[in-house]
Structure formats: C-alpha cells, structure tokens
C-alpha cells in the first residue's frame, strides 16, 4: 500500500499564474481533504471532497478550487497566484461513513513557491 501520494513534490510559479496539484488517496479511502501549511504554522483546512463533490470549505477564497475523480483521486487548483500562496499543500484521505471517526492519513505534500 503506497499510502497517500501527491505530485509534484516541488513547484515554482510566478504571481498571477495558475497551478494544479494532484493527490491519490490511500487504497480503500473515498474522501480527500486539502490543507495549506505556511512555513512555521499548522496546516489550515481548505476543503474536503466526497463522492466527487465539495462537502465543506475552510476560509479560503474562490481562487482555490478542486475536483475529485471517480477513482477518488483529487486535484487542487489555485488561480491568480499570490506571493502569500507559497506553502506546503497537504492532501489527507480517509474512509467516510458510519458513526465513528476514521483516521485521516496525510501525504508528503507539495511545496509551492510563488515568486
């Protein structure tokens, strides 16, 4: 089991550009969440995808959008990049459902640098 995988590992963009980050969930998981981790900070929740729909969204502007595919993999898109978007973007997956909480597993992240 490869766990949660993310691509690319690193990315450098300039202000105003658009970027797409990709995530493959852990085998057997159906839910993907995205987090932004600025340097020296804790991860901040961006949004969560389940059954190909956005279920919940954190305090992020509409420049941040996502998609989930039928195989449960997901993409995070950021438009009109700002310097402040430079961060580690983490993907987490879990199996949703039932009355109990199922652990979320995090990927290694994509380091985005905006110049």
């Amino acid at each position, binding site marked *: 089991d490869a766990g949660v995988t993310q691509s690319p590992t690193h990315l450098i963009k300039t202000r105003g550009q658009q970027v797409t980050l990709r995530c493959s969930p852990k085998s057997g998981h159906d839910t993907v*969440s995205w987090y932004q981790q600025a340097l020296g900070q804790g991860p901040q929740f961006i949004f969560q995808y389940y059954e190909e729909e956005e279920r919940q969204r954190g305090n992020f502007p509409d420049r941040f959008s996502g998609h989930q595919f039928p195989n449960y993999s997901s993409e995070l898109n950021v438009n009109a990049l700002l310097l402040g978007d430079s961060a580690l973007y983490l993907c987490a997956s879990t199996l949703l459902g039932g009355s109990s*909480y199922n652990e979320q597993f995090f990927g290694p992240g994509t380091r985005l640098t905006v110049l």
Partner: protein
Amino acid sequence: QQQVKQSPQSLIVQKGGIPIINCAYENTAFDYFPWYQQFPGKGPALLIAIRPDVSEKKEGRFTISFNKSAKQFSLHIMDSQPGDSATYFCAAINSGGYQKVTFGTGTKLQVIP
C-alpha cells in the same frame, strides 16, 4: 480564529528528559483529539489520539493527559530520544461533523544527545 492554542512554540530537552506540550481548545463540539508528528519535508503522521471520556492514554513512550472541564490536553514524551526531534501538532476534530482537522500552531522539539 485560533480554535486550538498550543504551547510552547519550541522546546529543547536533554536525551532522557520528558518534554511536555500543552493545548487548549474552545469548541465543545470537538470530540477527538489527535497528536501529529511532522519531520521536515514530510506530511504530519498520527502519533496518538484520545477521546474526552478518557483522562489519560499511553502508547509506548507517548502519553496524552486530558482535562475535559478545563478544555485542555497535553502530550508527554517519556525518555525522549534525539530521533524524537520533530514538530508536534495537537489537533481537534468534530467526528460528527465533516471531520476536518483543526490543528494547533505546532511545537518544534529538539532533543539534545
């Protein structure tokens, strides 16, 4: 709004010492409290977790203490080792909601040989 407050920001201990990291939360809807360990260049990895109906949980050298009335919880690392040097995040989750993880601000731990 910082819903989970964590302290200290950084911590240096000698090998064998017992670092303690403290967290406090505000939202009483939180009912699951994990701790994550993160090494440079890696994603957070679950270390140990507790529910508020339990006051203490031990797994190996890691212990969580939980005070529901004070809305505080802490992580103790027994017999700390240089390999424990990492950033530690407390977190809180409303398992009945959308289950997003609300993280603390992190504690950078350095264990000196």
